[in-house]
């Protein structure tokens, strides 16, 4: 279908897109102010998480792992107790006198890594199932689709809760539960894309060339379905963080004494109305982080579906 948009003729591409489109997308994204804010937040969050995360992995709770933080998050000071935000403790302290800002900064890498792990696994697992469903069609398709329907119709939180409990509420159980709940949407995406490009010329042509199935699978189907998936995944990071922190709020998947943004908020809520900062700031941090991902993901989706103009 050729559209007249004035761009010159825009044809449905019958040739795989060039590989440097990530740069192209970034360039377009930068033009939009809100997307830039989102990008700053995301890069800041991920950057910090990587740095601090590596330190935590290597050094646990001591020494260098806390060197970058304003205070040692595990130093409790019962004399100070529950103290509001001031110049020393920028976001206040909790009932044990531990600095909230430091605890939050210490907790962030976990959210980042877990979210990353979950989304990646969901994309891969969902991708495999989705492509198989789309490519094979008929019964395989029907079965896989009924599965995704079943999962997608349930509230994510309830299902994740149930599964986490089944897995004995360990951290790995929680991660597994998240992956199980998250893969269906990606299966849907990949399936839709596979159906679209399955009959396109270059796919048929590769079949004629006797390309091996695995190579075919990855270099054609997976790679060319990836665009809308990446855009959605960017958004989804935020969703996983939201769900994960809510689980932490409910007390699941914790590994004390390591702080978790959600559980900090839970403790804070317990001391309301005094000590509101302990209840509010962790949630606020999550709010900002998720907004960042949503802004970036949203913009990417717009760009990929070619809906942008100003």
């Amino acid at each position, binding site marked *: 279908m050729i559209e007249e948009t004035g761009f010159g003729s825009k044809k449905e591409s019958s040739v795989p897109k060039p590989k440097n489109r990530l740069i192209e997308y970034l360039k377009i994204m930068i033009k939009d102010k809100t997307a830039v804010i989102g990008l700053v937040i995301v890069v800041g969050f991920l950057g910090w998480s990587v740095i601090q995360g590596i330190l935590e992995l290597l050094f646990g709770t001591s020494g260098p792992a806390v060197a970058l933080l304003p205070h040692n998050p595990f130093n409790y000071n019962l004399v100070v107790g529950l103290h509001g935000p001031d110049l020393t403790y920028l976001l206040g302290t909790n009932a044990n006198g531990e600095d909230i800002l430091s605890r939050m900064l210490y907790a962030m890498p976990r959210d980042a890594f877990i979210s990353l792990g979950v989304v990646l696994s969901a994309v891969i697992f969902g991708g495999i199932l989705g492509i198989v469903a789309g490519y094979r069609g008929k019964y395989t398709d029907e079965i896989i689709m*009924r*599965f995704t*329907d*079943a*999962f997608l*119709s*349930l*509230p*994510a*939180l*309830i*299902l994740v*809760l*149930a*599964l*986490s*409990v*089944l*897995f*004995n*509420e360990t951290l790995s159980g929680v991660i597994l539960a998240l992956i199980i709940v998250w893969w269906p949407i990606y299966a849907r995406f990949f399936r839709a894309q596979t159906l679209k490009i399955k009959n396109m010329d270059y796919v048929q042509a590769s079949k004629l060339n006797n390309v091996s199935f695995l190579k075919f699978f990855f270099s054609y189907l997976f790679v060319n379905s990836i665009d809308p998936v990446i855009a959605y995944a960017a958004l989804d990071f*935020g969703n996983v963080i*939201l769900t994960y*922190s*809510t689980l932490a*709020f*409910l*007390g*699941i998947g914790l590994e004390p004494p390591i702080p978790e943004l*959600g559980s900090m*908020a*839970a403790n*804070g*809520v317990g001391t*309301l*109305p005094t000590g*509101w900062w302990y*209840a*509010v700031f962790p*949630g*606020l941090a*999550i*709010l900002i982080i*998720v*907004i960042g991902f*949503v*802004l970036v993901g949203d913009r990417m989706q717009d760009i990929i579906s070619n809906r942008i103009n*100003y």
Partner: protein
Amino acid sequence: MDTRTVSFIIRRAIYAVITLLILIVFIFVLIHVIAPNPLSLARLYAGNPHATLSQLKGVVAKYGLNLPIYLQVLDYTKNILTGNFGYDPLHDKPVITLIGIYLPRTLEFVLPGITLSVIIGLFTGAYAASKRRKPADYVVKGFYLATWSMPTFLLAAVLQLVIAYDLGLLPAIGMVNPTLTAPPDVLAFPILNAIWARDWVYLVSLIHHMILPMIAIALLSFGLITRLTRSTMLDVMETDYFRLTLMKGVSRNKAIYGVALRNASIPLVTYIVLAFAYAMGGAVVIEDIFSYHGMGYYIFQAVFNLDYIGILGTTVIIAIAVIVANLVADILYGVLDPRVRLE
């Protein structure tokens, strides 16, 4: 009702049943992967992590846990369909009874909350679409961005902090003033019970305590609905038939709030179901913060105490509720949009 519509409904109902069965089978398989033999299964069902061997053996016998798996699945499914969700050892009551107590309380604030968010969301979405790229659009977008990205516990906590504690407008916790005695349980829903018994003081207290959770639910789902409505409206406004309507000489406002909204609201029924499913998840946190003892509270207690039967029962009932809601939505969709019936 013509035969096309009837066959459509039947098809949708069959889909719903299959989906439910798949879910039940999946959960069962999962349980059996985790607890591969009857004894470890018994540990799950006993609700007591320190049960002795003989107690476990008793549980095995009682629940028939040493029967082949497919029999257990069939048994379980049959039980579900007859309303037997098992016996909750934590509360010492059948699960179905507990659901009968707690679910209505949750629905009392969830249903109004969703209705509120749908009505407001629909018009806000249409408004944002009509004022696209103007300041009003950005304000709306900013608002639903914030409510969407906010973790539920932040939203509920802030509401509680500002409105209940700081401003003192509404009670902070509880479902009802604890000094009052409840009217007799005739109609399962506390509000209806109060009306039936003409206990107006109790009714007012109930409503007072319900407002904040309801607002929390409304704000939670509002973002989703506004966003979906806005984008559907924008899609409709790009169609040929919308342009043709304008070409006929229909005024822009009439075209937007008449034709566009009418077409964009067809998926609305689906949105309501989405919002409902989402709200059920949010209710767990909201009820925790507001100490509102409804379904969310029950679920939380079950999670906290590793009450497997409770968790299983609540998950399945919520699954049933959502699947039924989806079915209703599908059917309504078919009624509203003549094109769907041909499918």
